[in-house]
């Protein structure tokens, strides 16, 4: 294959795809056109909270994100794609320009999900996804005043950590009974909640958001939770999950997964053999992944296909996550909730409530399949690299050594 490769979206995954293609494409078979929606080149979105706390945006730059000096890559910023014409094999940008493609990779990512509660769009409500979002939040920060983060997942807690560091009286609202319910079990979630509370972040679990309430000036004055409690705040940040950006599918006649996302096969290819989707916008065999590591694996798989390895596929990725705030560390890896058939759990926890560690093992209690760490994540990287393998030593030793 050769010709023009059009990449729609220049996030972390789209960027990885282009880099992989350029690294592998020795003969220069592909000319690459990257169409970015944001006015800036790809940046490290994972580090957004560092920027929110005050680190310069430049520190988020990804190596080679502007493709300076690579004449085989053309990066167009502020060029959101609005339509795909598969018959003509072209995409059209918002400004009306059209770009023809021989291969098209959709890497449009996700958009924040904002729960449709009354008042969700009042002035003072924000989302937390892009550099622009962070700039708006920073402009709205008033030290000493209340801030409410809706969503106690990884992103929500990073936002809360940033708001707290900026001196706001920060609340986190989570409908599940404990924080980071996707990654943490009850014990880990409890430690996480205590550590945050100790730092002064007010955690409200088990009660979802009922409404955002306006003051006399028409902007946010408070939020009301499902249990009726009212939290005074002028700033609301929604971090209640994301939804795949698949708006281009309908107009192009491309299928989407049951929960959205461009429906692709295990090679990340749509039903159209010239169109792929990678990252958070892809529903690989129906399943979306909201983390960057699986996105990287998809990008590599597609880059390999584009450079001659026809059968390179996405073999899945483990969904490990770590949250690191000042004085607060939690991580989960592999099958954190022990859903593997016959899985057994080994847990050790300080009763003071500061440290909790769980290893999930297979039914023979010899192979590591997952785990949860809270309070101390020193062993995280080592344990993660042991996933799916026989334990090299006693769990106590693995959890202590690191």
């Amino acid at each position, binding site marked *: 294959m050769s010709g023009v490769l059009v990449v729609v979206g220049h996030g972390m995954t789209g960027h990885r795809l282009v880099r992989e293609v350029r690294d592998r494409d020795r003969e220069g078979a592909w000319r690459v056109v990257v169409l970015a929606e944001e006015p800036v080149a790809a940046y490290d979105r994972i580090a957004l909270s560092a920027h929110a706390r005050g680190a310069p945006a430049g520190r988020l730059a990804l190596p080679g994100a502007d493709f300076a000096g690579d004449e085989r890559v053309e990066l167009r910023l502020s060029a959101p794609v609005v339509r795909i014409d598969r018959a003509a094999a072209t995409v059209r940008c918002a400004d009306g320009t059209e770009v023809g493609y021989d291969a098209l990779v959709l890497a449009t990512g996700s958009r924040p999900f904002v729960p449709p509660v009354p008042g969700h769009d009042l002035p003072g409500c924000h989302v937390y996804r892009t550099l622009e979002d962070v700039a708006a939040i920073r402009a709205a920060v008033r030290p000493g005043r209340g801030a409410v983060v809706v969503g106690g997942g990884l992103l929500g807690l990073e936002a809360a950590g940033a708001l707290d560091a900026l001196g706001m009286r920060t609340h986190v609202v989570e409908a599940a009974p404990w924080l980071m319910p996707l990654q943490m079990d009850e014990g880990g979630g409890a430690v996480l909640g205590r550590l945050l509370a100790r730092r002064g972040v007010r955690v409200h679990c088990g009660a979802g958001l009922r409404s955002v309430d306006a003051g006399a000036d028409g902007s946010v004055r408070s939020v009301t939770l499902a249990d009726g409690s009212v939290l005074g705040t002028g700033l609301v940040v929604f971090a209640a999950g994301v939804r795949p950006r698949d708006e281009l599918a309908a107009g192009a006649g491309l299928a989407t997964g049951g929960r959205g996302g461009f429906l692709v096969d295990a090679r990340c290819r749509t039903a159209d053999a010239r169109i792929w989707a990678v990252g958070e916008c892809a529903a690989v065999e129906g399943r979306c992944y909201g983390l960057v590591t699986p996105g990287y*694996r998809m990008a590599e798989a597609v880059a390999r296909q584009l450079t001659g390895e026809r059968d390179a596929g996405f073999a899945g990725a483990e969904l490990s996550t770590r949250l690191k705030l000042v004085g607060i560390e939690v991580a989960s890896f592999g099958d954190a909730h022990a859903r593997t058939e016959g899985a057994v759990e080994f*847990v*050790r926890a300080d009763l003071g409530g500061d440290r909790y560690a769980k290893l999930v093992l297979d039914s023979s209690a010899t192979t590591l399949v997952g785990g949860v760490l809270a309070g101390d994540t020193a062993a995280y*990287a080592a344990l993660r*690299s042991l996933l799916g393998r026989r334990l*090299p030593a006693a769990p106590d030793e693995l959890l202590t050594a690191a």
Partner: protein
Amino acid sequence: MSTPGTERIVVVGYGPAAHRLVERLGRHGHRGEVTVLGDEPAGAYSRPLLTSVLDGTLTPGALALPAPPEGTHLRLGVTATAVDRHRRLVRGSDGRAYPYDRLVLATGAAPLVPDLPWARGADGRLTPGVRTLRTLAHCADLGSGDPVAVVGGGPLAVEAALALRRRGRDVTLVHRGRYPLDRHLDARAGESLSARLRALDVALCTGRTAEARTGGKLRLDDGRWVAAGEVLLCTGVAPRTALARAAGLAVRTGVVVDDKLRTADPRVHALGDCAEPPGGTGPHFGHTAAWEQAEALAGLLAGGRDRYTAAGPVVRLKAPEMDLVWLGAPDGAEETVVFADAARRRYARLWLRDGRVRGAVLLGLGRAIAAVVRLYRRGEPVPADRLALLLGSPVEYAGERRPADAVVCHCAHVTGADLAAAWRAGARTVAGLAAATRATTGCGGCVGEVRGWCAAYARGTEAR
């Protein structure tokens, strides 16, 4: 007082505690006269084995404990009606007075019947078909075949339910707590226990109380009816303290005694389920504590300097279907260790302080039970590998910490083999390995790991 070892001793009650005391008095060389007043018509028997009568594996006769030492005056069917501490004598229902130098109250405990209108008639007696389970008499005629509802959630309730199942009876366990043994087990142990009971066809109605009983059925507070041709109330016991109270002795839950098992009257002692030793935790119910107390008191009465200090409780569910033990208490523990195997309904939890067991719950882990009980009783530190301890067997570990195909950097998908290749190609530092493989250049979370691999290569232990 007369010379120790020669005093006249009267023991009121002839349950296992009294039986053990009398036997140990002989062993300790007590030479004085010993009289025992037992209100049950039969001699002492092993109460812990009652469920074996219930399930039919033992006849009532098989529970009989050995006869007391020769010379013991045993008065069976005689109830002590009053204690005259001034004249130092006990009055019996046989009209006789029994003088003592030392009196030992071993009156035990009586079943506690909850305030349920259907359980008691106007006369205060249990209604037909309703019984408690404390004595051999309670076990009689329970073989008739009707479905049984066991009310209660303590060890006796669970043991009785299982014993009746072994006998082929339909059994429903009705308990107002969230799961059986909720006073002793944490929620996850409770889940596994409940699953095991259900698998043994014990129907569980937890979080429920019985409101009415008609036509051989109990109506629960959620409106459900459960078959209950017989009802067995296993809803706890209360120390029998009326005699002590009437004699003016201090009673809290039980008869208050010091570490010599002595009441405020130095000539009157109490032991077993009726006694409340120091410590503020009420009577130390159960035969294990009773035996420890009997041992201490026998030594004291024979002239020794024994003291009763409660060994931490170790309670084993008496049911052949499952290994279930709880021991000690979590109070003061610093750390907890859990092994949970939901699929096989196995569960263990330790509470540790200074690396020693303060409390534990173990279900379905027979070998671990033996080891943990031993560590607890001896106060020894638990071994470093607590997984092996709880599994009850050594675990074979792979030994190799840095396998070649382990993914070290997930952002750049760098394996151990990739790092090894880079090392062999001349990269000798973390930065060098990073430049060669891109490891650590994503989120940076694997820097420590790469440093570890680098150090291992430098030691020459890997990367060959």
